[in-house]
């Protein structure tokens, strides 16, 4: 029996403790807590009453443990007791996936996100949706600039100058600062492209930079070719802004007659070497990537290493034609040796350049120059009685012809042959991962914060939320895994090429592995050029709205008829 006089303090403490415990006792086993509390009045000894209450707390601990363990078997948003709990099994509008399965699936997806490869895949995929081509984003650009300022490292400044999308002034200042700190980096002027109007698919280089490069590397043909290109590009821009009614060939003739252009091209064709500076760009990026762990900024690598094409192609083509014309004149004048020398010049130049620059654009321009030269040179050699040389040339000529017939596959890595489908898949998987992630968040929100909703009422939101909680985590894991698997070979290829010495093949491998996520199949480009415009957009919108209106009208009419028939 209750004896409040024996130990009022101990009993009060035990009573209060048990009452407090009952407040936090899990609903499904709370009656056991009440049972424990009800016994307190029967205990006489103060020590025993406290021990009883302590035992009650141990039971509370067990009850909570069981509550937590069992709660993992229930889906998210479903309480242990109440109307929702009893309806889980048969209600379509409630999630049925146990929460431990949901959590495991989500944890696996999150774990995947913590791997660098996946992050890079996701980053590339999201960027590809935005820009189409790799572009150094705001965060990595800022990071690079801040890091360069902090470390005063000329290599980082050089990478920033080449890769940033900011203004011309910013690019040139960064380049100048990098070269001032390390004069051997002067070659970056051949890679720092300005935001001015592009010509021949490439943005121009800076005139001052080219001048500095000519001075620093006089034996190299590239600076002279870039200088000649600047003259050509200016003439083309002038002609485009105010087209000469006499036609395109007149501005080309003007360029041909420009003594500066002639001098630059002559110097380039006679120069003892051609260095595209791709190896230096590769080593620069590799060195910085190792030191600063740039692997999380793959777009920097893509911008640095992507072989953007052979800029001076038009000038090379024009100068080769000019040399052949000079050779023809010499041949007509009976100066056969001089004519042969002039015909040989484009061939020798092309071979010198192609040892260094294996890009498709360079191949097209230079092999074309070589092929055209052979067409002149072979008959001349036969005329000169050098039959053996002419026969050897015939073999080369036919192999070149075959090469042209096979095609060069401009944008080889971007189209449907390899990179395009990979790029499309990465883009789509990235979008799917994003949408499923959003579905999980929305589904969780509906059931975690919407328990008050009555499951008996037919609410589409609950149905969608239930579907999201049941299927989205699994699909998210599958999509994330697929994205990882699709991207993994690319990153392995990239890492492999980054670990071996530079060679002309490296550019192709790196370009493919780094740029493939940004590619799209050729049909897409055809489709987008044909149909993705304002006219077709309006057409689709109007047709879509019309179909919706027709459907709503038909449904209303059907209901009216049905109601009348029922009446």
């Amino acid at each position, binding site marked *: 029996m*209750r004896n409040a006089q024996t130990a009022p303090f101990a009993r009060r403490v035990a009573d209060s403790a048990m009452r407090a415990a009952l407040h936090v006792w899990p609903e499904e*086993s709370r*009656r*056991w807590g*009440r*049972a*424990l*509390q*009800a*016994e307190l*009045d*029967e*205990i006489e000894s103060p020590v025993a009453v406290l*021990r*009883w209450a*302590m*035992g*009650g*707390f*141990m*039971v509370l601990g*067990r009850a909570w443990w069981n509550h937590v363990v069992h709660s993992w078997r229930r889906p998210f948003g479903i309480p242990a007791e109440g109307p929702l709990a009893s309806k889980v099994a048969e209600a379509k509008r409630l999630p049925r996936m146990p929460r431990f399965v949901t959590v495991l699936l989500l944890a696996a997806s999150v774990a995947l996100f913590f791997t660098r490869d996946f992050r890079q895949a996701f980053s590339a995929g999201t960027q590809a949706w935005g820009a189409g081509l790799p572009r150094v984003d705001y965060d990595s650009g800022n990071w690079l600039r801040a890091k360069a300022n902090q470390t005063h490292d000329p290599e980082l400044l050089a990478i920033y100058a080449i890769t940033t999308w900011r203004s011309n002034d910013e690019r040139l200042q960064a380049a100048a600062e990098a070269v001032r700190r390390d004069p051997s980096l002067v070659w970056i002027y051949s890679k720092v492209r300005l935001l001015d109007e592009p010509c021949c698919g490439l943005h121009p280089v800076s005139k001052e930079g080219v001048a500095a490069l000519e001075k620093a590397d006089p034996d190299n043909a590239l600076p002279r070719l870039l200088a000649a290109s600047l003259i050509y590009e200016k003439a083309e821009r002038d002609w485009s802004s105010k087209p000469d009614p006499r036609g395109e060939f007149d501005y080309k003739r003007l360029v041909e007659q420009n003594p500066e252009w002639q001098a630059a091209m002559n110097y380039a064709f006679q120069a003892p070497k051609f260095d595209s500076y791709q190896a230096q760009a590769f080593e620069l990026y590799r060195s910085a990537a190792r030191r600063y762990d740039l692997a999380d900024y793959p777009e920097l690598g893509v911008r640095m290493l992507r072989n953007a094409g052979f800029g001076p192609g038009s000038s090379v083509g024009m100068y080769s034609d000019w040399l052949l014309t000079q050779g023809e004149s010499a041949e007509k004048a009976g100066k056969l040796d001089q004519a042969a020398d002039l015909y040989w010049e484009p061939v020798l130049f092309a071979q010198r350049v192609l040892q260094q620059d294996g890009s498709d654009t360079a191949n097209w321009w230079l092999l074309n120059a070589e092929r055209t030269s052979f067409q002149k040179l072979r008959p001349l050699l036969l005329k000169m009685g050098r039959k053996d040389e002419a026969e050897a040339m015939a073999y080369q000529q036919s192999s070149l012809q075959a090469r042209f017939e096979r095609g060069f596959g401009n944008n080889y890595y971007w189209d449907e042959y390899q990179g395009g489908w990979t790029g499309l898949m990465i883009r789509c998987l990235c979008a799917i991962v994003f949408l499923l992630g959003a579905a999980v968040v929305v589904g969780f929100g509906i059931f975690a914060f919407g328990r008050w909703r009555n499951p008996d009422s037919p609410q589409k939101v609950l149905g969608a939320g239930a579907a999201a909680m049941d299927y989205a985590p699994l699909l998210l894991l599958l999509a994330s895994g697929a994205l990882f698997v699709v991207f993994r070979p690319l990153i392995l290829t990239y890492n492999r090429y980054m670990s071996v010495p530079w060679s002309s093949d490296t550019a192709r491998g790196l370009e493919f592995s780094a740029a493939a996520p940004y590619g799209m199949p050729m049909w897409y480009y055809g489709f987008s050029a044909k149909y993705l415009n304002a006219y077709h957009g309006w057409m689709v919108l109007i047709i879509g709205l019309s179909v919706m209106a027709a459907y709503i009208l038909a449904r209303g009419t059907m209901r009216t008829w049905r109601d009348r028939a029922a009446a």
Partner: protein
Amino acid sequence: MGIRLRVSPQTLCVLDALLEHPGQWRHGYSLSRQTSIPSGTLYPILMRLEKLHWLETRWEEPGNLGRPARHQYRLNGNGCAWATQELRAARARKFWKPVYSEV
């Protein structure tokens, strides 16, 4: 049932106490005093026995004013049969020695 009871010496003690007067309702504190098992051990045993449907529980009639209704326990028919069998088996393998009663 999906749940298997771990027949510990304490559980056997509780079963033994409940079998002393099989049809009689018992209170938690009296069981605790009889078996010397503290509440932190006794109640989980009772909870598991109830979950196995071998223990009947009820709240006593509120006859005594000023005191909350107490929870009462007794073994049902299945529970009695199972408990008798378990106690016999435990005794046979000398796992448990009865203190209060012989079954």
